C-alpha cells in the first residue's frame, strides 16, 4: 500500500497506459471495457489522493528512471495539476460506462476494442500532460492524446461521414498547434540548454529581454491557443465536437481544452516568469480582447445553431473566454476563478453532452427541430439538459454560478467594473440559447407521432452523476474554491518551483 502511494505519481499515468495494449491483446469488447473502467477508476482514486496530499500547498516530485532532474524526466504535482488530474480522471470514469452503451449504435462492433484502447491512450496523454514537470514530455503526451483524439473523432463516421472531415480539420490545426509548441520549446532549449520546467524558470529569469526567448513564448502561447480553441483559433472545435461519437464529445469537451489551458498557465506562470507576459502587457492586450470577443461572438453564434451538439460546442468556446478572462485579470482571484471554472465547466458540459447523446440515441438526430416536445417523452434527459443549461448561464445553486461569481469578484477587485458588466451581459446570451433548448423540449408540440422512450438507465445514471455534481458543487462551493485558491497561489506565487517532497526513490544526480 505504501509502495502504491510512493509511486502514485507514475502509476496514475502508467495504469491507463498499460490498459490500452491490454484492451487490444484481449480483443474482447466486454473485457476491454472493464480493463479501461478499472484503469480509469484507479487513476481517479490516485489523483484524488494526490490532490489531498497537495491541497495544503505542498509539491510532490518523482524522478523517472532513477535520474534526478534536471538531467532526468521529473513528474511534479502541485495543487494546479492535481486539480486537472482529478477533472480528467473523474470525467473519464463517468464517461466510460456511458460509452459502453452509447457506442453500440455509433461505432461498428469490430472497432469497439480499438475504441477503448484509443480512449485509454487519449486518457493517458491528457493525464501525462498534466502531471509532467518536463517541457518536452508535455509535447510527447500532447501528441499521444491528440493523435488518439483524431481517431476517436473520426470514429463518428459510422453515423455521419462529416466526422472524417471534422477529424481531418482537427488533425491539421492540432498538428500546427503542436508544431508551434515544439518550435517554442526548441527555442527555449537553445537559449537555456534544459527542458525541466523548474530549471527552465530559473534560467529564463535573466533572459527576459532575449528576443529568442520572447519568440519562444509567442510560439508556445499560440500553439497551445490552437489546442485551447481561443476565439480566432477555434475553427476545429465545433466540427470535432459535433460529429464525434457522443461519449467522445462529452469526454473531449470536459477535458481536452482544460488540459491545454492548464499547459498555458503552467508555462506562463511557472516556466516563464509571470512578469514576462504581463509586465510587457502583451498577454493582457491579447487575452483580454479575445476572451471578451469569445464570450460574445461564440455565444451569439450558438444562439443561431440548429444542431444541439454544435450549439454546445460554440457555448464551450464562449466558456473558454471566461477561463481566459480569469487569466488576463492576472491576479490570484482571477486565477482562482479560472481554475474553478475548469472544473465546473467540465462537469456541466460533460453532463450536457451526455444528455444530448442520449437523445440522439433515441431519435437519431442532433437537430433541435426534431426534438420538439421531447420534454414529455424523455423527462429525465431533458431535465438534465435544462439543469446543465442553468449552470452554463450561471444561475445560483449551480456550479457555473460559483465560478462566474469568483470571476466577477476578481474583476471588481481590480476595479474593472466594465468587464464585470460584460460578463453579466454575455451570460444573458447564454440565457437565450439555453432558453431555445427549453422551448424546443418543453413548449413546442411534438411533430412526429412516434413514441420515444426515455433513455436507458445505463446512459441516465452517468449523466446524472455529473448533473448532481453540478448542483452539489453549486451548493457547496468551498471544496472547489479552496482547491482552486491553492492552485492559483502555487501558480502565481511560484510555489511549483519551490521545495518538493521526492516520492519513490531519490534519483541519481
Amino acid at each position, binding site marked *: 500500500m505504501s*509502495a502504491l502511494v510512493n*509511486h502514485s505519481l*507514475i502509476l496514475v499515468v*502508467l495504469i491507463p*497506459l*498499460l490498459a*490500452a*495494449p*491490454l*484492451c*487490444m*491483446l484481449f*480483443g474482447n469488447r466486454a473485457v476491454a471495457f472493464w480493463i479501461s473502467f478499472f484503469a480509469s477508476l484507479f487513476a481517479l482514486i490516485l489523483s484524488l489522493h494526490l490532490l489531498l496530499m497537495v491541497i495544503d500547498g505542498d509539491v510532490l516530485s*518523482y*524522478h*523517472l*528512471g*532513477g535520474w534526478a532532474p534536471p538531467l532526468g524526466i521529473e513528474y511534479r504535482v502541485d495543487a494546479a495539476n492535481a486539480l486537472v488530474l482529478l477533472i480528467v480522471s473523474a470525467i473519464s470514469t463517468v464517461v466510460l460506462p456511458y460509452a459502453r452503451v452509447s457506442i453500440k449504435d455509433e461505432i461498428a462492433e469490430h472497432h469497439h476494442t*480499438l475504441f477503448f*484502447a484509443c480512449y485509454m491512450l487519449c486518457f493517458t496523454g491528457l493525464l501525462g500532460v498534466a502531471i509532467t514537470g518536463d517541457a518536452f514530455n508535455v509535447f510527447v503526451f500532447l501528441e499521444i492524446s491528440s493523435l488518439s483524439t483524431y481517431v476517436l473523432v473520426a470514429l463518428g463516421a459510422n453515423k455521419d*461521414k462529416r466526422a472524417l472531415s471534422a477529424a481531418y480539420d482537427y488533425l491539421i490545426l492540432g498538428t500546427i498547434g503542436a508544431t508551434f509548441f515544439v518550435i517554442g520549446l526548441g527555442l527555449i532549449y537553445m537559449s537555456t540548454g534544459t527542458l525541466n520546467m523548474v530549471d527552465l524558470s530559473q534560467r529564463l529569469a535573466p533572459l527576459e529581454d532575449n528576443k529568442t526567448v520572447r519568440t519562444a513564448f509567442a510560439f508556445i502561447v499560440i500553439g497551445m491557443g490552437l489546442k485551447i480553441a481561443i476565439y480566432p483559433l477555434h475553427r476545429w472545435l465545433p466540427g470535432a465536437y459535433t460529429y464525434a461519437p457522443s461519449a467522445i464529445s462529452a469526454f473531449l469537451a470536459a477535458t481536452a481544452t482544460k488540459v491545454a489551458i492548464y499547459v498555458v498557465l503552467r508555462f506562463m506562470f511557472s516556466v516563464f516568469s509571470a512578469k514576462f507576459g504581463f509586465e510587457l502587457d502583451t498577454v493582457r492586450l491579447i487575452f483580454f480582447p479575445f476572451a471578451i470577443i469569445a464570450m460574445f461572438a461564440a455565444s451569439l453564434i450558438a444562439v443561431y445553431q440548429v444542431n444541439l451538439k454544435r450549439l454546445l460546442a460554440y457555448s464551450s468556446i464562449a466558456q473558454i473566454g471566461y477561463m481566459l478572462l480569469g487569466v488576463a485579470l492576472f491576479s490570484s482571484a482571477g486565477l482562482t476563478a479560472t481554475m474553478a471554472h475548469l472544473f465546473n465547466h467540465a462537469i456541466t458540459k460533460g453532463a450536457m453532452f451526455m444528455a444530448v447523446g442520449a437523445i440522439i440515441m433515441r431519435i437519431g438526430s442532433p437537430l433541435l427541430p426534431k426534438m420538439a416536445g421531447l420534454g414529455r417523452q424523455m423527462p429525465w434527459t431533458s431535465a438534465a439538459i435544462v439543469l446543465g443549461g442553468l449552470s452554463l448561464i450561471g444561475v445560483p445553486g449551480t456550479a457555473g454560478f460559483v465560478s462566474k461569481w469568483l470571476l466577477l469578484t476578481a474583476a471588481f477587485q481590480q476595479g474593472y467594473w466594465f468587464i464585470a458588466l460584460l460578463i453579466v451581459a454575455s451570460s444573458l446570451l447564454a440565457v437565450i440559447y439555453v432558453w431555445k433548448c427549453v422551448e424546443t423540449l418543453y413548449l413546442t408540440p411534438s411533430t412526429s407521432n412516434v413514441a420515444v422512450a426515455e433513455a436507458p438507465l445505463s446512459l441516465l445514471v452517468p449523466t446524472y452523476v455529473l448533473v448532481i455534481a453540478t448542483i452539489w458543487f453549486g451548493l457547496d462551493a468551498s471544496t472547489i474554491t479552496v482547491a482552486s485558491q491553492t492552485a492559483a497561489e502555487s501558480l502565481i506565487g511560484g510555489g511549483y518551483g519551490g521545495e518538493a517532497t521526492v516520492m*519513490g*526513490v531519490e*534519483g*541519481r544526480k
Partner: protein
Amino acid sequence: MDHHLILRAITKILVAPILLYGLYVQFHGDFGPGGGFQAGVIFAVGFILYGTVFGLRNLRDKVPDYVVHRFVALGLLIYAGTGVVNLFQGGNFLDYNVMAQKGYQGQHWGIIAVELGVGVTVFAVMLAIYYAFAGRPPQINDEDW
C-alpha cells in the same frame, strides 16, 4: 503465379537475410548504431517485400491482421512492463539499475528489453500501415459515402 520468375527467386533469397539483419540491428543496438526503431523497420521490410512480390493476400494469410494488431500492443506492453518490473524490484519506473547486481549491467538489460518492445511495435505498425495502404478498396463507391 508464373510471371516475374526473377523477382520471385530473388525475393525468396533476400527475405531471410533481411530478417536476420533486422535481428542483428535489434540486438546489437546497445553497442553500435541501431536499435528497436531501425530494426523494426528492417524486419518489417522483409515482410513487405514478400507481400509486394507474392501478393498482399498471401502475406495476410501468413500474418493476419489480428496478429499484427496484437503485436502493436505487445511492444508497448514490453516497454511499459519493463518499467513495472523495475517498480517491483524496488526502483523507480524504468530505473534499470536495479535489474542486475551492477548498475551498468542493469542498464544493458533494461535497454535490451525496452528496445525489444520498440522493435516489436514498430515492426507491427509498419505492417499495419502497409496493409492499410495496399489493402484499401480500389475504388470508393458512391453509396459508401
